């Protein structure tokens, strides 16, 4: 009988020990976590929309949509600077009166930089940024692009527009450490992409070798607040599907850094779709409609709309002004792209109020998500 008791005791002890073992794996890690938590920093996430839970955390926050906590030195582009930056080149006048614009573009493919908060990628760049600089000229100007390949692979510059075969950037690929000067006249007026045309083409474009090239008509377009938006994305895990979408590279950037514009003022957006892998992309504007100039090759608008859908390489000029002040979204109406970063915000300011602020107002450093008001009750009736 004592044997049985011993066996029962052993069985109970074994059961207790095994239970303890099962729990220990969890609790051991738990103890470590508690030990690390002692610094007691606190952040709150969620709750900005009804249905989303609210959570206080002592850990790190992963929030590319509402904050911008990454080290700017490692970021491949400053979207604020890029937005309104136009490179007119080094200007001189030739004997026949033609304006010569000289640009220098340096390609590199060896850097790993941040393309979305917390995510680093082997970026292939023109002049160190994605997108490359926006080249701008007037119809009829002579353009010279001094191209230097500072990368480890052959590259080239293929510019859309009218030019000679040998200036097309397709047949002359420039080897590493090589140089080439592209020379052509700026025609016709419009908005174009430029990009590397070395195969495998998909790889060279998806890694970031592209930019915008604008040719202004000889009689300039009306004065406006002008900006460049290039719709792009990144396939960071190489499955030929984009992990991130954006305008001007950084997902959600213009959500936490809304683009400030003036109420009633003419806004002109040079919009180019350089998105790889997906067939279509589009641009939807909230609270407004825009005049759409497809390819920007006409001075008369093609359409008055709030939606334009583009395939890769397509582009347009969008002109609009805001009737009312406030915050207005713009985003891909392909919702998937919007929820992976292709979404932004215009902050429309009443010029009278801006002046009364004395100009110092709460300008571009607004980091917070716009307040969402949740309406409850039967307001709809």
């Amino acid at each position: 009988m004592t044997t049985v008791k011993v066996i029962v005791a052993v069985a109970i002890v074994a059961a207790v020990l095994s239970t303890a073992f099962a729990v220990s794996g969890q609790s051991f890690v738990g103890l470590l976590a508690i030990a690390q938590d002692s610094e007691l920093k606190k952040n709150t996430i969620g709750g900005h929309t009804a249905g989303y839970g609210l959570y206080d955390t002592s850990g790190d926050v992963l929030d590319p949509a509402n904050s911008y906590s990454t080290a700017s030195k490692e970021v491949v582009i400053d979207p604020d600077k890029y937005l309104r930056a136009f490179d007119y080149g080094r200007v001189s006048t030739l004997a026949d009166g033609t304006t010569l614009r000289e640009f220098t573009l340096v390609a590199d493919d060896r850097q790993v930089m941040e393309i979305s908060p917390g995510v680093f990628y082997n970026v292939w760049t023109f002049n160190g940024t994605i997108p490359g600089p926006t080249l701008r000229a007037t119809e009829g100007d002579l353009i010279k692009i001094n191209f230097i390949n500072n990368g480890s692979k052959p590259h080239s510059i293929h510019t859309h527009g009218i030019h000679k075969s040998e200036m097309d950037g397709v047949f002359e690929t420039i080897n590493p450490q090589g140089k080439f000067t592209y020379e052509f006249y700026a025609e016709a007026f419009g908005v174009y992409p430029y990009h590397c045309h070395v195969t495998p083409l998909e790889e060279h474009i998806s890694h970031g070798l592209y930019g915008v090239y604008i040719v202004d008509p000889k009689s300039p377009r009306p004065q406006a607040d002008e900006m460049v938006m290039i719709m792009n994305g990144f396939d960071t895990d190489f499955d030929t599907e984009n992990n991130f979408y954006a305008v001007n590279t950084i997902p959600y950037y213009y959500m936490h850094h809304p683009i400030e514009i003036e109420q009633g003022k003419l806004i002109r957006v040079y919009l180019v779709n350089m998105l790889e892998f997906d067939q279509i992309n589009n641009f939807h504007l909230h609270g407004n409609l825009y005049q759409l100039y497809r390819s920007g090759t006409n001075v008369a608008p093609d359409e008055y709309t709030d939606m334009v859908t583009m395939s890769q390489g397509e582009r347009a000029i969008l002109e609009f002004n805001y009737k009312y002040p406030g915050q207005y979204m713009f985003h891909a109406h392909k919702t998937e792209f919007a929820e992976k970063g292709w979404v932004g915000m215009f902050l429309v300011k009443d010029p009278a109020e801006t002046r009364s602020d004395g100009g110092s107002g709460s300008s571009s450093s607004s980091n917070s998500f716009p307040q969402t008001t949740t309406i409850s009750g039967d307001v709809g009736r």
Partner: protein
Amino acid sequence: MEEDRNLRSSSSSSSSLQPRSFAHAKLIAIALVPFVVLAAMIAFIFGPGQQFLGIGTPLPEITIERVEFQEDGIIVAFIRNTGPIDVTVGQADVNDRIQQAAIEPGRELPRFAEAKVIIPFPWNEGEPYEIGVTSSDGTRFSKSIDAAAPAASPDVEQAAVFALIGTYVGIIPVLAGLLWLPFIKRLSLGKYRFFLSLTAGLLVFLGIDAIVEANGIAAVSVAGVFNGQILIVLVTILSFLALMYASSKLGERSKGGTSGETHELPSYDSTHSGHAKTLDQQHHQQQLVVKPVAIALMISIGIGLHNFGEGLAIGASVVLGEIALSSFLIVGFMIHNTTEGFAIVSPLAKARVRRMLSKMIIMGLIAGVPTIFGTWIGGFVYSPIAAIIFLSIGAGAIFQVVFLIYRGMAQEEVDRGKIMSNASVIAGFAVGMLIMYVTGLIIPS
């Protein structure tokens, strides 16, 4: 002992001039030589050898081990760095759409470290979700959940629900199966052998079932670095060997400590005739009483471990939203598990055991109650590795019991080789496995 002493003195006599401790140190030093060579090699590889041995790029790997859906619009993913290098988590997503999230203790994960990713998200019950995290190099790792179900919160109410489920699928069926005892008692020896072998068939099925289930968990939820499948084989063998040792010690004890050849006797009272009531005979009697109890107890422990694993699976499935715990499923488990009660009582049937009822109840509880613990642990703190270990221990225990049953029967046979060619034994084994297979069909998977 004497011989041992001689041996020692002879070995130390050659170095009798040196102090004993010096000889020891020398021995240890010799043993350490290969380690020194190894250390030098490692130093070389990490040092100057790095430039020509640094082949390939180590890739990060994150495993999402578990996803919890909480009532107040929060999804929690438990992730672990299972790759060869440290990783930093960049972003989190739900259905491949980027979401705001928190990560605790922090976004930097050393090798094997675990972290908790908290994603506020208004999830809908019953819908499938894919939860993903993206490491700083842009690689996305994800886990799919077939149907979101609210996480079991470890409160009294939920624990009581699990206890009830455990009682239904574990305790009641096993205890019900024990009621076959009077039936088995009335059987002739040949028929009894059939049912004993049937028990072995039931058990073998359970053992295989446990291994298959563990393999499923290893394949789906355990990262490659943990070598889940090897762990199953390893733990099963170790469990088998450990219980072999324990049972032989048990056999020795029951013989009053004599360490001669263990003469294990069959688990039913023999009809040996012509024995006088000698001391030896009394001794023999005592052993006959203990041995069947021991086998039954080991069966119940083995089944208990198996049921613990079953409980883990049920609890985890409820939490992970993999099954809807329908009443049909519970009925399926009940029918299936009733056979386990039969397995416990069959070795007891022909033995004279005092206080049989209380022993039976204890064994039934040993076999059944772990189901409840299993549902609690599976539901509240599920760990796939622990599940694999328990299932494998159970499998080893079960196979060991099967071994004991057949050894017992074989020793009863005059011609020892004959047992496996006995028709009723083979038929019993086959029927036992088939019963398990058929009752198992009732359980929807």
